[in-house]
């Protein structure tokens, strides 16, 4: 086993901000980085916890246990960066689900805007990670998240119930 342990970053050790060019930058352990990458270590379970902070080349500088533990500015920037990096629109409404020439077309309203995703079938493209959550993925590997299908509007629920 490697002697190195997981390094947890405290709010004193980490300060991040968005550079003028829109790239995430920051100071870790007093050292300035012109480009930082972030990775959610548990992207499905924790979307604002256990965030791995890495250099442009992918070397891990440390892990933020929770955004809540950081100063407000850094937390806001990190939250924004997570949203940008993990493209996972949350579905607010399902407009339609149609099957045409053996493809399934979903017209969706999401918190990022409206999107149309195409599936070749349902059994390879729909996942049920647990609870009432549904993950839809399309032919290009884009994913949309239905956080709780039972809390959606009646129209969306009816469409889902029809096929699920």
């Amino acid at each position: 086993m490697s002697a190195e342990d997981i390094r947890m970053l405290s709010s004193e050790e980490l300060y991040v901000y968005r550079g003028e060019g829109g790239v995430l930058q920051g100071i870790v352990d007093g050292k300035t980085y012109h480009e930082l990458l972030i990775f959610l270590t548990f992207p499905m379970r924790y979307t604002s916890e256990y965030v791995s902070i890495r250099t442009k080349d992918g070397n891990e500088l440390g892990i933020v246990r929770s955004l809540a533990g950081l100063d407000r500015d850094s937390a806001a920037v990190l939250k924004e960066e997570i949203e940008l990096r993990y493209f996972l629109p949350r579905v607010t409404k399902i407009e339609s689900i149609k099957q045409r020439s053996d493809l399934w077309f979903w017209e969706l309203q999401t918190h990022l805007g409206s999107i149309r995703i195409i599936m070749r079938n349902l059994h390879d493209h729909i996942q049920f990670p647990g609870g009432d959550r549904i993950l839809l993925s399309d032919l290009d590997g884009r994913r949309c998240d239905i956080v709780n299908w039972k809390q959606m509007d009646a129209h969306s629920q009816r469409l889902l119930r029809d096929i699920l």
Partner: protein
Amino acid sequence: MVDELPEIFKSQLSEDILFNVKTDLDTQGMLAAQWLAITHGDVTLWQEKAEPIKRIGIEEIKEARAVSNIGSGMLVVETTTNGPIVIARYTSTLSTAMSFAAKLITALAQGEQLPVATKGDIPRYCSTCHSPMKEGTKTCEFCLSKKYAALRMLGYLKPYKFKGILALGLLILSTIVELIPPFLTKIIVDDVLQPQQPGTLFVIIIAAWALTLLVMSSMQALRGYIGVAISSKLMGDIRKDVYQSLMKLSLAYFDRRQTSQFISRVNSDAESMRQFMTDGVIYIAGHLLRFLFILVIIFSMNWKLTLLALVPIPLLVFLSISIWPKVGRRLYQQWRAIFRLNMQVGDTLQGIRVIKAFGQEKSELVRYNNANEEVVHHDMRSEKMWQLFFPAFGLLTSLGAVLIWYLGGYQVLSNELQLGVLLAFVAYLGMLFGPIQWLSQMISWTSRAMTASHRIFEIMDTPADVADHPDAVKVPNIKGDVVLQQVTYGYEKHYPVLKDINLEVKAGEMIGLVGHSGAGKSTFINLLCRFYDVDEGVITIDGVPIRDIEQTELRRQIGVVLQETFLFDGTIAENIAYSKPDATPEDIMRAAKIANAHDFIVRLPDGYDTRVGERGHKLSGGEKQRVAIARAIIHDPKILILDEATASVDTETERQIQEALANLVKGRTTFAIAHRLSTLRNADRLVVLDRGKMVELGTHEELLEKEDGVYRKLVDAQMEMSKIKGVGS
């Protein structure tokens, strides 16, 4: 269809556009369209308005890169004054196009030769379904030939058209014959069973009746006999086609799927299709014919009563049409539930050792029960629907009969109608509505078959990622020069695991591939075998790009000894001669001898005829490996790929394997994923991979001299490990 830059933006550019692309995210990550255009002078980005939102001169740019995120990506340029700048964001649909944009910008900025966009770099969309189209295809793979699943399914009947026509002829005949008995009833009641009639006519009619029954039964038997002959062969044809399609598919298809699902898929889906095509088609045709014939007969008997009898039909048709889509979806749900259950069983059985070792039988049982309950739920749901549907159909059709009895009975009582006519009418009516009730059965069969055919055609229509080029060549006698030029590849296109690999290997040279796990060693050899196609760059053998070599031909020239030695169910001899079924016993023994396997094989009670594989004799890891080496020797490839086993074997076995390998590599271009120092020393040159990049290249000695080199560290670590082992033992 390629998205052209709108005129309003185009007019703002003073130079020719080198590349333009319509993005699907704005810089804040919201779903929106932006336009990116690259010219010799600058990179410009617009959103809705005419005024560009970003414009950066090429002279300000050092380099550009496409950074892949999860499901999305961003195009970043490194500027001389302002550091990195995010130019555009996009969803993963545009990853390839943006990678090209990044390469182009970098080339412009650094004054290098501009890359040429291949078809794959430019996103093209199908005009009907808007799904992205594959490189080199003219028609959309998703839309093509899928609309006519039913017709395509019936296409399987083609080879049996003569038998089919015969069966159909018999069907028409027996349908006509079937219609005779009610007519005879009418004659008996109205004309024969009259006091003044002689008995001979009665006997004749009865005899005719008996004869009709006999003819009918024999025709049915004959038809059934033909039906069975067709259906069994049909089933075989479908299975064969599916299996053929599976074999044709690229490795990437199987990487993403659990293979055990195919067994159930191929069998049960083929069965549903067969049922429709043989029983289904015959029933549809038969009942439709009967329906028409009867309609004509009863219409000519009494048109008023006929119209009355037809009253429930519009309702039946309406009911069928409205229920149709629901049936399809429920059946697909049911299919999916069973699919998940099957997958779970496959998973559990494959991992049974792990389950037992960790004592997780109970939790597996719980998982199974959950999936099982789901199947039960869906079974009940779709069956319940039938239970409601069938009686409803029955009720509607019986209502027609009640109406006829009521009005027809009145007419008989008032002498407007003969009793025989009414009896025949009611009998025909029973036959008329029989098929209509069958209609509901038809819906069930047809939808089942459609569901199954969609799944089966899905496999057949999946394009092989690695397909043979139409002008692929044979390379009968190769020398074995291998060149990799700027090879980049990722299992997910936007996440390369091998980056910009350049390597020239001379025929007969032995190359050791070294690196941490996940460095890209296995990917390297997968690309050499062309299990996957490179995303960028080219691999050539004797100067011919491997994309242009027929795959069977290519694999014939490449021999592989993999880490996980897989022996097929069969004898050792069959396994050794796997790639050369015509090998003589001498060939087999010679190969085994070189592989140091001959002696242990001969000592086995059944010698070369020992059954190995799933149900056979258990060979040890070292023995299996030597059989695999023998298999590669008999294959006699010019290029050899070794993925050395990491499993620890005793020193004597290790020596034997090493010796066998040394015999094998002689005179062949060899790529070996090496773990043991001994192999590393034997290699002419070593390629050190680190996170997908080639970081070092040289001989064992050369690389050891690099104080801070990756290879040096790896070797030191291995020495350390063996010291620890030494102390421990």
